[in-house]
């Protein structure tokens, strides 16, 4: 149950600035590669040029003899990693378990860009040079990298979430008065955070290792390394306080990280790996190429009769990767007959990994495009069509939503973008040469509360330290946690410090899946509340207490003071309570998790995106000229960073809609645009002013703050809003992303 006193966002608790913003823009924030350890050596990876086969021979002598080189490791000489040659180590459970391929353990080539050698030298430049001297010959085998060609090989992945789903009679749509069948394609997308992936490893004793990594979960990395090297977890110290963007690529411990730990152990020297930009395209996952078909039937009144959603996505030959591509279709609309199927096709490619919004964003593009297509067939306003099929309760699990304010979100977004300007007839609006169109779509993502611990320490000077092992991949986790502690304890924001991103701190989950504010935030809330209870008791009981005889609930915590409700002149600085009780510090640590409410209610965050686009029918250029995103993500804990997160999500959505695509040449199984000049993430000029609107109503069940997740819904659905707007502008439906000028010009010129 949310605390009604919390998170008023009134004048008493104005929106706070990003607590680590100054450090980040002044160079004060230290990223993994910036830690300096004397004697550090540098690792450069040599990668496979072919997509399938095996290594026939490898010439490493020249590289080994090059200046400054300490070692060249290949499958022939990488020391055995003790925990990986056991069945439980080497055959992680499928699907979506740990990595089943391990680096430099045999001659097999499983994908182009696979690391086949590590060159380690005393400087980065020497390692880079020596890496060019490693010569490899291969025994090639025919590779399969083209999903379109191998769709028939799709298999249903293991796991309940991936099973075929059916309610009612899925074929009903075929006999509905209005029928739509359409296929959609999403290309390979690559996370491409600014900061490159890597790891810095320093063995401080035979059984102790210090690691600076680029990971979305320090304890995940700790576990993986402890298991691989059969160490006590406490002997693996991992630190990742700051991260230059993750977007999902740091959600697992990659084989090259384990290999660097092994090399550092063998060499007895610190080893640093920072991969190159082109290696970012093959070694740390990607959003999988996915094809989808939506079949949909509706009656003349605009009521959905049936939806069939089929998705097929790539995975690696050596590991199953799955995501919830068809999940949203099961519950977002009130429709009696629904079926979904999800298939994965093993290809000779590196394994994908969740990329922001993950499968839900892929699925929402197809479903929300199809909803727009159906609305057009019915000659209905797309919002009206959605309202006629509004799900008041969860039709998949037959239970209430914990909270859902999507109707209000439609209205707020429509008002803000000026939806009334939109004509249902495509191509009706122009500004000179440019066609103007409006589109919208919805998004949703699971809201949950996991398990986490936190510790808070109050000092005599009234300052507070909060501790959690959680990492912050960018959304502003520290700011949110400081905000929660401030709201509970009334300690000024500037006196609160959040320590994070280190395995010596209390347990927290990996940052991903829009769960951290809910999960770690609840732990911070509970811990601060426990501290508050102790403080109140101490303050009342101490000698000369101004609160003598009062009850704890009569005390107000504000501005770093404890005050008596009704007589605010009776007050005490929080630190003075510690002094009066001869306590240098007062701390509390708690473990915190959700309860049975998660089984009683369906918990989801929702978003609505609106896009205004300008399409040039002569050149095929599409520009998003205005964007509005509305989030129903419960109570907003930190309005400024939440708005930033939303803007970032929309920017990712613009990329998905208009620019991002990693292109494979299937003849070689290699990517042809593996750099930031040719793989187009949106630049500032592509991103218009974005209005972010928050419903900001607490979810009554999820956690004490009433906060649901934000990170994924900011992106989920945005690409469909753009595609729908392009249709509204031109009358042309583009179902293959990204919507680049060549695709537009073929259709409208």
């Amino acid at each position, binding site marked *: 149950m949310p605390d009604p006193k919390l998170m008023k966002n009134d004048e008493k608790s104005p929106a706070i600035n990003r607590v680590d913003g100054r450090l980040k823009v002044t160079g004060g924030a230290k990223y993994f590669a910036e830690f300096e350890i004397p004697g550090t050596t540098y690792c450069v990876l040599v990668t496979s*040029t072919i997509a399938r086969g095996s290594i026939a021979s490898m010439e490493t002598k020249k590289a080994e003899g090059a200046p400054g080189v300490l070692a060249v490791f290949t499958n022939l000489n990488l020391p055995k990693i003790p925990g990986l040659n056991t069945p439980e180590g080497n055959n992680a459970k499928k699907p979506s378990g740990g990595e089943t391929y391990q680096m430099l353990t045999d001659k097999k080539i499983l994908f*182009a860009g696979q690391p086949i050698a590590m060159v380690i030298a005393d400087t980065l*430049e020497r390692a*880079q*040079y020596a890496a*060019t001297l490693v010569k490899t010959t291969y025994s090639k085998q025919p590779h399969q990298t083209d999903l379109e060609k191998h769709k028939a090989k799709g298999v249903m992945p293991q796991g309940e979430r991936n099973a075929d789903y059916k309610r009612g009679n899925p074929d009903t749509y075929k006999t509905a008065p209005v029928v739509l069948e359409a296929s959609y394609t999403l290309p390979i997308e690559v996370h491409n955070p600014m900061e490159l992936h890597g790891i810095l490893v320093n063995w401080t004793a035979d059984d102790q290792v210090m690691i600076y990594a680029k990971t979305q979960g320090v304890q995940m990395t700790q576990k993986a390394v402890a298991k691989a090297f059969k160490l006590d977890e406490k002997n693996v110290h991992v630190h990742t306080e700051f991260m230059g963007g993750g977007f999902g690529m740091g959600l697992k411990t990659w084989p090259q990280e384990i290999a660097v730990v092994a090399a550092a152990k063998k060499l007895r020297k610190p080893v640093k790996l920072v991969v*190159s930009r*082109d290696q970012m395209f093959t070694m740390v996952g990607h959003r999988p190429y996915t094809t989808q078909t939506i079949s949909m039937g509706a009656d003349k009144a605009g009521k959905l009769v049936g939806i069939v959603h089929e998705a097929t996505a790539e995975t690696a030959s050596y590991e199953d990767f799955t995501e919830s591509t068809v999940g949203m279709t099961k519950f977002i609309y009130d429709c009696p007959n629904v079926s979904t199927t999800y298939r994965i096709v093993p290809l000779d490619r590196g394994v994908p990994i969740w990329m922001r919004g993950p499968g839900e964003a892929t699925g929402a593009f197809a479903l929300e495009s199809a909803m727009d297509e159906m609305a057009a067939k019915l000659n209905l306003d797309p919002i009206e069509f959605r309202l006629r099929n509004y799900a008041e309760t969860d039709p998949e699990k037959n239970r209430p939503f914990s909270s859902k304010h999507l109707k209000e979100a439609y209205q707020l977004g429509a008002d803000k973008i000026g939806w009334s300007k939109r004509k249902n007839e495509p191509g009706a609006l122009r500004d000179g*040469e440019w066609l103007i169109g409006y589109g919208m779509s919805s998004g949703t993502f699971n809201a949950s509360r996991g398990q986490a611990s936190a510790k808070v320490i109050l000092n005599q000077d009234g300052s507070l330290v909060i501790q959690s092992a959680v990492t912050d991949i960018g959304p502003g986790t520290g700011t949110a946690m400081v905000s929660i502690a401030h709201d509970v304890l009334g300690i000024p924001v500037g006196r609160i410090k959040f320590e994070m991103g280190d395995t010596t701190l209390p347990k927290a989950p990996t940052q991903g899946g829009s769960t951290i504010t809910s999960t770690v935030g609840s732990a911070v809330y509970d811990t601060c509340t426990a501290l508050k209870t102790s403080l109140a008791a101490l303050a009342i009981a101490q000698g000369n207490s101004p609160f003598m005889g009062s009850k704890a609930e009569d005390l107000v915590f504000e501005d770093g003071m404890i005050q008596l409700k009704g007589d605010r002149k009776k007050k005490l600085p929080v630190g003075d309570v510690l002094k009066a009780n001869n306590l240098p510090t007062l701390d509390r640590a708690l473990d915190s998790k959700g309860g049975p409410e998660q089984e009683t209610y369906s918990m989801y965050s929702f978003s609505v995106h609106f896009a205004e686009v300008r399409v040039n029918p*002569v*050149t*095929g*250029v599409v*520009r998003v000229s205005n964007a509005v995103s509305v989030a129903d993500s419960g109570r907003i804990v930190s309005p400024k960073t939440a708005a930033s997160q939303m803007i970032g999500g929309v920017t990712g959505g613009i990329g998905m809609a*208009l*620019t991002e695509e990693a*292109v494979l*040449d299937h*003849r*070689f199984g*290699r990517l*042809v*645009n*593996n*750099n930031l*000049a*040719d793989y*187009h993430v*949106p*630049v*500032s*000029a*592509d991103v218009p002013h974005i209005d972010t609107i928050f419903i900001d109503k607490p979810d009554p069940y999820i956690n004490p703050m009433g906060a649901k997740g934000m990170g994924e819904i900011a992106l989920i659905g945005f690409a469909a809003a753009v595609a729908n707007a392009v249709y509204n502008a031109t009358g042309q439906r583009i179902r293959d992303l990204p919507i*680049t*000028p*060549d695709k537009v*010009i*073929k259709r409208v*010129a």
Partner: protein
Amino acid sequence: MNQFQYVRVTTPKAAVAAVTKENNSLFLAGGTNLIDLMKRNVMSPEKLVDINKLPLNTIEKTATGLRIGALAKNTAVAEHELVRKSFPLLSMALNAGASPQLRNMATVGGNMMQRTRCGYFYDTAMPCNKREPGSGCGAIGGYNRMHAIFGTESSDRSSKCIAVHPSDMCIALVALDATVLVSGSKGERRIPFIDFHRLPGDAPEKDNTLQKGELIMAVDLPNNPFADHSHYLKVRDRASYAFALVSVGAALNLKGNTIQEARLAMGGVSHKPWRLTEVEQFLRGKPATEATFRQAADVAMKGAKGYGENDFKLTMAPNTLIDALKTAAKNA
């Protein structure tokens, strides 16, 4: 990256001498392209001759026009008052290229010398006749969305190349009848800009007509009557920092509504900046109307050939040409 020697020179003579006498040595100016190519092992010079100290960065009025030193930064040229006033097409083209950070580093000479951005040229694990003569052209039958539609003829299929020259600046310079002043071991010579870059023919490894050791000293632009009616239109995949799918540099001299003279060039369509002299002749004396521009586009597209993924350019190029001409005719 390979190991290489690095020397810094202070006179053009020393620069020319340093590069002439060594087999595999190159001039280093802004380095915005060469260093990338070295990092990816596409180019592996044994010696870099840093010419940044040479006194070649001035932009000055001459008796017949404007002289731009080879080491003038792209930003400095784009923002120069004389360029903006009298050669706006050049300013527009420069600002359409790269990013501010790159333009701050990149020089005029270096911009002319930049290599193609074809993905096969950059990946040493795939074939490329430009990088490795005789290895084949990866783009033919592969990813050729960005590639050429003009001037790809070659007598020998095994040496074919359909890469494009990536520069925006060069489109303006070729349209505006620039001349390149170069200095070599045998002295100075002048190369009409239109002859500076070459078509791939049977030697796609050669981007231009410079002789071994020749150093670009300056680019001369003749005065022209086009300042009021110039437009550079670049169509690209994102709003900034992307190479052209198609670009057009258009400059008109109008008397009333009659075209006295026109200058036209296209980017993103050929191995060299693609000057459209035949179209310019066609336009002379014609009214500046959309109908005229449509006919001009037909003339421009004669001989164009798509390679599959870039077939859209057969529509995009004439459309962009018409649009650029319309805007240029309106400008004043």
